[in-house]
């Protein structure tokens, strides 16, 4: 059984992020790490691997050369090998183009299960998993709080706030797991040291058979017009008018999705 885990290299401290001339995030100027939610994906992959024989876990990423660090973290957490899609033409890819590249890489690797985190800290589009499923014509089980496998099927549970859903699909399938799925382990020193000797392959777009005209900033289907930094809302407001205060609190609760 082959499991592909999607990983992403994201800025470590959001406060340090700056934007380049073309309104893309300047990833070279900021310290990055493995995306938190991807740690949960790697954890789930290793848990599946622990329960079954002959499981191979491949961590897959695309991004600038620094993104290899995210792969190393994933290898330390238990992935067996890494694949890095590295190409200058990938700069500024939008979500559909990202899914195009990742789908090609997954097809080339072969897979029974693709496990992803739900949303990245930097983009938070959370649409790459279902896009990948659409391109690969496989089912998608998104936002799973629990993941399990049967012989040829993958099982997931999710809670949409009002009901608990149990999802089942035949493999191959795409799954995205939430941070409620199980705490990722803290890698032992031996695992970190061993990760340095695990294989990382680097693929270019040409090797994946993708025309560079279909990816990158120039092929993006969305364009960023403007980026602004909103004034932070004052954390403490006056409550001398109870009605206004109630509206302010209700707005805050709605914004944070408690209502």
């Amino acid at each position, binding site marked *: 059984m082959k499991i592909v885990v999607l990983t992403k290299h994201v800025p470590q401290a959001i406060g340090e992020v700056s934007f380049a001339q073309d309104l893309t995030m300047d990833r070279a100027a900021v310290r990055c790490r493995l995306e938190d939610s991807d740690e949960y994906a790697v954890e789930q992959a290793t848990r599946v691997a622990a329960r079954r024989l002959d499981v191979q876990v491949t961590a897959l990423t695309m991004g600038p050369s620094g993104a290899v660090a995210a792969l190393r973290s994933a290898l330390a957490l238990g992935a067996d090998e890494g694949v890095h899609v590295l190409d200058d033409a990938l700069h500024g890819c939008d979500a559909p183009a990202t899914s195009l590249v990742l789908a090609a890489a997954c097809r080339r690797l072969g897979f029974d299960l693709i496990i992803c985190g739900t949303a990245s800290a930097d983009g938070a589009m959370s649409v790459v998993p279902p896009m990948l499923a659409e*391109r690969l014509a496989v089912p998608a089980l998104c936002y799973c709080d629990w993941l399990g496998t049967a012989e040829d099927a993958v099982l997931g549970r999710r809670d949409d706030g009002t009901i608990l859903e149990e999802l089942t699909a035949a493999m191959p399938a795409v799954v995205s797991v939430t941070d409620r799925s199980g705490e990722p382990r803290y890698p032992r020193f031996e695992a970190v040291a061993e990760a340095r000797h695990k294989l990382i392959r680097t693929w270019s777009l040409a090797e994946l058979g993708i025309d560079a005209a279909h990816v990158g900033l120039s092929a993006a*289907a969305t*364009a960023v017009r403007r980026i602004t930094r909103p004034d932070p809302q004052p954390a403490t407001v006056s409550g001398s008018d109870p009605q206004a205060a109630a*509206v302010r609190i209700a707005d805050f609760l709605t914004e944070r999705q408690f209502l």
Partner: protein
Amino acid sequence: MRKVLTLVDRERDGAVRRSACALLTIARRLGEPVAVVDGPADPELIKTLGHFGASEIYCLPESTHADSRIESAESAESAESVRGPQSSASTTAAEPLPLLDSAAATSGSDSAPTATDLLHHLAILLDPAAILITAGYRGQETAARLAIRLDSGIITNAVDVRPGPDNTPIAVQRCLAGSYLVESTVVRGVPVITVRPEAARPEPFRATPAVHTVRVDPSPNPVPSVAATPEPRPDRPPLDQADIVVAGGRGIGSRAAFAVLAEVADALGGAVAGSHTAAELGWVPQEARVGLTGKTVHPRLYFACGISGSVRHRAGMQEAKTVVAIGDDPAAPIFHLADLGVLGDARTILPALLAEIRNRKAL
């Protein structure tokens, strides 16, 4: 004016969600709002959507499951054509709408058409100015698949959508934990935009919608089967497992005022807790005391009312993800922890808040 498709987000019993009405309000800024229902439409649904300005409603025929395959086999030539506009009166009330068939949704080509199939069909048929979908578990997946099928650009989790200079919608997203606002437009295909439920307040705008029933062939892509079990939720969750905790302290003033706080907790679906003082005064049971000598809680929302936030109290709640505090002492330490602090009298603000929450929940 070009049409703007909005996917109607519904409860499991078929009731229209508030967010669906908010989408219609946003759609009205961009063009002619059209509601798309991934199931049959009953009079109640048509009435609600009309109340919020839907000029047209596209829905699936009743019991798409068993019949559609038979009918499409019998009359293949009319299978994918839009049936003419029917009067809304002719549509009868259906059984509780199966949003996702819980009993035996099968995978593969013999399943019912999904929302993606329906929207894909309508996008080609109507060439809308935009497709708006509520950002949720299902909405996000529908939007993602739709964008790939249409080869369109997609913008997710928009907190605001407004018409741009050349009438292309501009969507505003919060990025990097809300520290930046990014305004983007879609430059290829029909814009697919998922909108956060809180992006707009539904504004009534009376319209008499024309109802169209559409027959769509399900796509051959396999979909996971979904067995949905309604989770039995206790009215009030246990304190140490609660997602939302509403806590009161000395500032609440009396046992009677604490009852209002409990009602706010019920309206939010949260647990009631008290500070050391509140427990000592008997306003809350001893086991609901949060702090060093009581329970430790890790909720997503900790709502502290009339609590100063002494060290022993903070020890029990500082792991809370979001803290909202109401208190009348600007020097109270709880305000250092609070994501939102309100300086005022909790006894007057809580009843107003309760009314506001009930008002918002009732659409």
